[in-house]
């Protein structure tokens, strides 16, 4: 009897599972941390900046929608290029106010860009590498003059978060300012709670889409030190919207409440590739690179390494965000992504890398072909993928091994070109231009020993340079498509790097408390909360139940 009383007391005393108030959306903050530091500076996204700063507080001129490939008008309603394509006129939305009630005008836009020019560390998008000047002919028009015709610059220019001149003009050092009480134009700007491990941001009373949107009252964040804790809260129903990797999500999340729990992982993020150092024998030979690729069983990698969350890459290396650029001819010609050990063997024989008596092929200098496939320790999906690769390479007579490095050591080696074979990522770009520039341009290819943030395989092609240059200078969609498809064919012919699979963009939601999330059936925008500023598209559409 006494025990039951004690139990009852204990149960009554214990804290009930904390559920957020109605209308308060719990979002998983992308920065995994045990404690939050109050910093809402939207200009230095690479600092330790809280999620709302760039996702719900400060808004850009247009929001790029990675799912549809459209630029959604946001603080600007439209744009026109001048006839010589060096000038861009942007029409600003009228009636937009900062969260202190002051109207937003073109002066704020000009001020923002001038701030980036003054403090170059804030120019993360490299806007001033192609922009000459930004003026405001009137309160609702902004004119941007380019240094040269540079079409890919549009993306970087219009996605810049705009800050308020009347606040930021008095800030001595905007690079280190933590902007504790933001004045912004976005849907959620009012920081009402800020504790070490939890904070909440309420609706902006002056938001320009009110009274229709947003319907959500506030957004709330909890600190999670690692994926496991975040996933735990998601599965348990404490988080409404999340964007981190969840293993076996069908079973552990969707399966728990099939009606409300959903995930959507479209393969539109940067890809994962095996990089072969083209400046090192024998990987400079295109036949060798194609043979390596044919030795790899991508279906198995996707199943074993990636829980089936993505698809095997095609030979153009493009992800699903670039579907509209895809040349079916190039995809068909890229048969070197098919697992075909027999053909791989033939190609390697042809390249003169014959097997020795021990069954291992010999390199041109007569030594056994031994190679390490490098991978950062702790990237478990990559490690599993590499195990599949190594097995495939051994089948075609290469004495391959996996070698894991501490992340920083791995990153150092791949950037300076010290590796022979290594797994690596590719950056996500809005158009294939950026991807192919990273893969084949002489501007990104550096010598071995010189650190390079892209083009780790160190491949360049003068034809690619011409095509990329032409792409920079065209605003015509038909010409852009033709040039891009020629780049695709060039990539397929040369196999500069060996694509494995496009990266999925993680996104999961729980519709028990809110509806209106995008998913496969309603693909109005990507589901991931980790897109700056793409999350605005979703945040403004959600409706509390």
């Amino acid at each position, binding site marked *: 009897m006494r025990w039951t009383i004690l139990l009852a007391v204990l*149960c009554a005393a214990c804290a009930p599972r904390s559920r957020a108030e109605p209308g308060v959306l719990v979002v998983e903050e992308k920065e995994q941390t045990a404690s939050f530091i109050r910093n809402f500076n939207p200009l230095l996204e690479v600092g330790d900046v809280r999620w709302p700063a760039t996702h719900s507080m400060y808004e850009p001129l247009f929001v790029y929608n990675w799912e549809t490939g459209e630029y959604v008008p946001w603080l600007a309603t439209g744009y026109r290029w001048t006839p010589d394509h060096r000038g861009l006129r942007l029409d600003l939305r009228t009636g937009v106010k900062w969260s202190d009630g002051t109207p937003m005008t073109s002066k704020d836009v000009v001020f923002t860009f001038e701030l980036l020019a003054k403090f170059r560390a804030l120019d993360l998008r490299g806007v001033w590498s192609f922009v000459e000047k930004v003026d405001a002919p009137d309160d609702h028009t902004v004119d941007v003059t380019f240094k040269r015709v540079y079409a890919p610059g549009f993306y970087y220019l219009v996605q810049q978060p705009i800050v308020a001149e009347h606040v930021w003009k008095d800030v001595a050092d905007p690079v280190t300012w933590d902007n504790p009480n933001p004045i912004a134009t976005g849907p959620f700007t009012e920081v009402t709670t800020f504790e070490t491990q939890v904070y909440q941001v309420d609706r902006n009373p002056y938001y320009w889409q009110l009274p229709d949107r947003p319907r959500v009252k506030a957004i709330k964040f909890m600190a999670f030190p690692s994926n496991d804790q975040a996933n735990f809260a998601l599965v348990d129903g404490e988080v409404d919207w999340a964007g981190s990797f969840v293993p076996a999500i069908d079973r552990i999340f969707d399966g728990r409440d099939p009606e409300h729990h959903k995930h959507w992982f479209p393969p539109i993020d940067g890809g994962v590739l095996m990089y072969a150092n083209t400046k090192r024998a024998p990987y400079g030979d295109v036949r060798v690179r194609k043979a390596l690729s044919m030795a790899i069983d991508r279906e198995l990698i996707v199943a074993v390494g990636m829980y089936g969350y993505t698809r095997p890459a095609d030979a153009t290396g493009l992800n699903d965000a670039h579907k509209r650029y895809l040349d079916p001819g190039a995809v068909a010609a890229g048969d070197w992504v098919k697992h075909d050990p027999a053909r791989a063997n033939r190609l390697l024989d042809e390249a003169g890398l014959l097997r020795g008596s021990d069954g291992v092929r010999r390199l041109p200098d007569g030594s056994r072909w031994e190679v390490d496939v490098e991978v950062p320790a702790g990237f478990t999906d990559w490690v599993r993928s590499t195990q599949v690769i190594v097995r495939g390479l051994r089948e075609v007579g290469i004495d391959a091994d996996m070698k894991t490095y501490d992340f920083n050591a791995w990153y150092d080696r791949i950037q300076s070109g010290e590796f022979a074979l290594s797994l690596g990522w590719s950056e996500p770009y809005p158009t294939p231009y950026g991807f192919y520039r990273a893969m084949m341009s002489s501007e990104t290819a550096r010598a071995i020993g010189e650190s390079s943030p892209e083009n780790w395989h160190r491949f360049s092609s003068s034809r690619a340079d011409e095509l990329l240059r032409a792409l920079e200078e065209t605003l015509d969609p038909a010409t852009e498509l033709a040039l891009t498809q020629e780049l695709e064919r060039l990539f397929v012919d040369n196999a500069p790097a060996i694509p494995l699979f496009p990266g999925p963009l993680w996104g999961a939601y729980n519709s028990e408390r809110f509806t209106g999330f995008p998913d496969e059936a309603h693909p109005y925008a990507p589901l991931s909360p980790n897109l700056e500023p793409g999350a605005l598209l979703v945040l403004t559409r959600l409706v509390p139940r």
Partner: protein
Amino acid sequence: MKYLARRLAFYLVAAWASITLAFIIPRLMPGDPAQALFARFHGKLKPEAIESLKEAFGFTHESLWSQYGSYLRHVLTGDLGVSVSYFPAKVGDVIATGLVWTLFLTGFAVVISYALGTFLGIVSAWRRRGWIDRTLPPLFVFLGAFPFFWLAMLLLFVFGYTLGWTPVRHAYGDDFTVWSVLTHAALPAITIVIATAGSWMLDMRNTMIGVLGEDYITLAHAKGLHPRRVMLRYAARNALLPNITGFGMALGFVLSGSLLTEIVFSYPGQGYLLIQAVHSLDYPLIQGLFLTITMAVLGANLLVDCVYVWLDPRARGGAK
């Protein structure tokens, strides 16, 4: 007090050595902090922006000696610099978010674990082959052999998740109250106590058994003293000496954090910060954490030395 003066001099040298090591060790790690930073944000910024960022984050190409010089100056003035992974927050502010909680949680847990373990050790040695002596040591050895994080996850799953008795994360709930803080600390603290009490108990039990064989214990019994007085004043006080030294060491480990416990329970603390700092090659933060940890170890040991002098008259008379 010559003994204490000598110890003090020793601690000063040790402090200098640890300050220097805190400077050297991070720089021996492979990789470049600026690149590590860029890697964390790949996809978020144009590779071309990295140069101007390096400048903003204060990555310089100064020689190691001049870096060391300015580092020493800053340490002496208490300025630990700006964290890279939490840019632009100051290292001091970053450490402050976790320090109090680590001190609270692990400090509390270690003291409880020490007191409990030592007491049980005394009792089980005193009542050899009693029920405590027969059941608890094997049980604690069994529990202590579990990996720390595994025990933490098990407790979290059973009591936090399945039964719902305790909160499953964080140091306090939406409201900052004593009750909230205590319920949140209960499970992590119990994990640490379970995992560490066993070794205190065994150590204490073993020394105690040795002490109980001494002649003065027999004498005390013969004098007709109360058994409890013999147990605590005669036997335990002497058996405690080696254990006290161990306690000084353990207090130091407190600050390095029961890292895994903190992560499993999403508890704010030094342990998590340290992992984060090492992972992102955040030199200033690593240095700051090393410093707080080593200073804590040294401070705790100094304290233990003082207690030792009080407990053991032989240490007082060292100079005579």
